[in-house]
């Protein structure tokens, strides 16, 4: 059976070019970048070259990039780093951030920091007025994600950056889902901290990065050696870093266009051909690869189970698929009822998604929904 992978919001396939770049760093160029001998210097060169590549992708200086183990670590370091450096103060974030941001801010609240969680509208856009009104004299950080991982809504980070600039507040954005899909330039926008994760854009797992604008001070969260500007101890994951850097270069404009076209084809088909289905998130300001639909009277994990039986990998915001049996906080925050959140299906495309893959989904999905609705006591 041909496998159709439409869960690229969870993770992506590593690009062959990335693997090829990485391989020598396991058994040939295996040195420790802190060693002064030639093997070490070989690794050091790869590390700094990779740093230049990543910096280049967002118009930053190489010295403003540090490598981490992934998106969660980058978000933790950015938020805790600012908070503990300042010692006290107020943090603003949104209600639909990734758990690694929300749990981190909650943890800081326990340590005496104060926090405001901003509402979003029914499409997932942050309430800018509420954001403005929440700013206090002691606000030290605003953290709002670039694009949402579940519903794909792209936040107006330009306006948030302006606001932060005006009030002299540090602005952090979690760009884990958007990086390489939406251009971002730290020259154009006053963003102070940006989190990235390699495996979301065809790089390897276990590697991420954090952009830290010059003169922004963070308190380190990992103690040990003096790697990564003394901000992140631990021997650098050179193969991962090389892979991460390579992955930032390989996505083409035509890939974005293609994903957008296929995304729209899938959304249009579902909305026009399946009754009682609703799009979650914004139609216009939406990640090029994200489709998130709620179907009435059926449960998302069951939809996913039947899609999987047809070789299609998907995900859901249903409570049944979560370990807590709570539906997605994002879907609840945008105002979905429990039933609507349970009936959600997320399909996330990649540059490898072909039109025939989408055609196959279009072919099998209506029958799956029909079958499950027939089996459902909710009519």
């Amino acid at each position: 059976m041909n496998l159709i992978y439409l869960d690229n919001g969870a993770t992506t396939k590593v690009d062959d070019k990335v693997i090829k770049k990485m391989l020598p760093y396991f058994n040939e160029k295996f040195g420790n970048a802190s060693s002064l001998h030639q093997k070490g210097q070989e690794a050091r060169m790869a590390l700094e070259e990779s740093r230049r590549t990543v910096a280049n992708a967002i118009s930053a200086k190489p010295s403003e990039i540090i490598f981490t183990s992934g998106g969660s670590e980058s978000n933790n370091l950015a938020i805790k780093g600012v908070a503990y450096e300042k010692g006290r103060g107020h943090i603003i974030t949104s209600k639909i951030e990734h758990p690694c941001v929300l749990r981190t801010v909650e943890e800081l609240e326990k340590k005496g920091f104060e926090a405001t969680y901003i509402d979003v509208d029914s499409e997932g856009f942050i309430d800018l007025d509420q954001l403005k009104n929440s700013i206090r004299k002691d606000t030290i950080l605003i953290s709002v994600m670039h694009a949402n991982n579940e519903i794909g809504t792209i936040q107006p980070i330009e306006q948030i950056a302006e606001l932060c600039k005006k009030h002299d507040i540090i602005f952090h954005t979690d760009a884990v889902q958007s990086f390489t899909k939406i251009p971002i330039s730290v020259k154009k926008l006053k963003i102070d901290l940006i989190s990235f994760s390699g495996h979301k854009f065809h790089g390897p797992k276990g590697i991420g990065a954090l952009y830290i604008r010059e003169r922004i001070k963070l308190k380190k969260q990992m103690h040990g050696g003096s790697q990564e500007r003394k901000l992140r101890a631990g021997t650098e994951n050179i193969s991962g870093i090389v892979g991460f850097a390579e992955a930032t270069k390989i996505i083409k404009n035509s890939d974005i266009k293609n994903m957008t076209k296929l995304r729209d084809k899938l959304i249009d088909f579902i909305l026009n051909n399946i009754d009682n289905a609703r799009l979650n998130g914004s139609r216009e300001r939406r990640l090029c690869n994200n489709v998130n639909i709620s179907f009435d009277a059926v449960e998302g994990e069951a939809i996913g189970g039947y899609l999987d039986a047809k070789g299609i990998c998907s995900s859901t915001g249903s409570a049944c698929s979560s370990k807590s049996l709570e539906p997605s906080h994002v879907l609840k925050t945008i105002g979905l009822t429990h039933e609507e959140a349970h009936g959600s299906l997320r399909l996330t495309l990649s540059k490898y998604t072909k039109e025939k893959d989408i055609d196959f989904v279009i072919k099998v999905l209506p029958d799956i929904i029909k079958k499950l609705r027939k089996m459902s006591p909710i009519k």
Partner: protein
Amino acid sequence: MMYSEKLMDYFKNPKFAREIKNPSAVAEEGNIKCGDIFKIFLKIKNNKIKDISYLTYGCIAAIAASESFCRIVKGKTIEEAKKVSYEDIKNDLGDVPAIKLHCTHMVIKTFKKAIENYENKN
């Protein structure tokens, strides 16, 4: 979380997911907030479960548990069927993830309610 092969087979190939016309008893349990709703239909003749079916709104485990229960109790006497426990469903499915065990309890609860409805009626 992992589902057993048998559980997935029941989910993919349900034989009892349908309505029974003129049932001897029906019962519904669960609510949309918890994420699952079970409805059981019974056809009883000479104290025996002549036919049984379900409609389930819920996850893979909820559907598979409903299917398993129907397969186990069809043909049994009411007394025998009442003795079927969530563990019997669990064993039939070849284990159920702990977080999904409530689905098996819910099926039993729905069935017991259906039997109660039947006994009150007759």
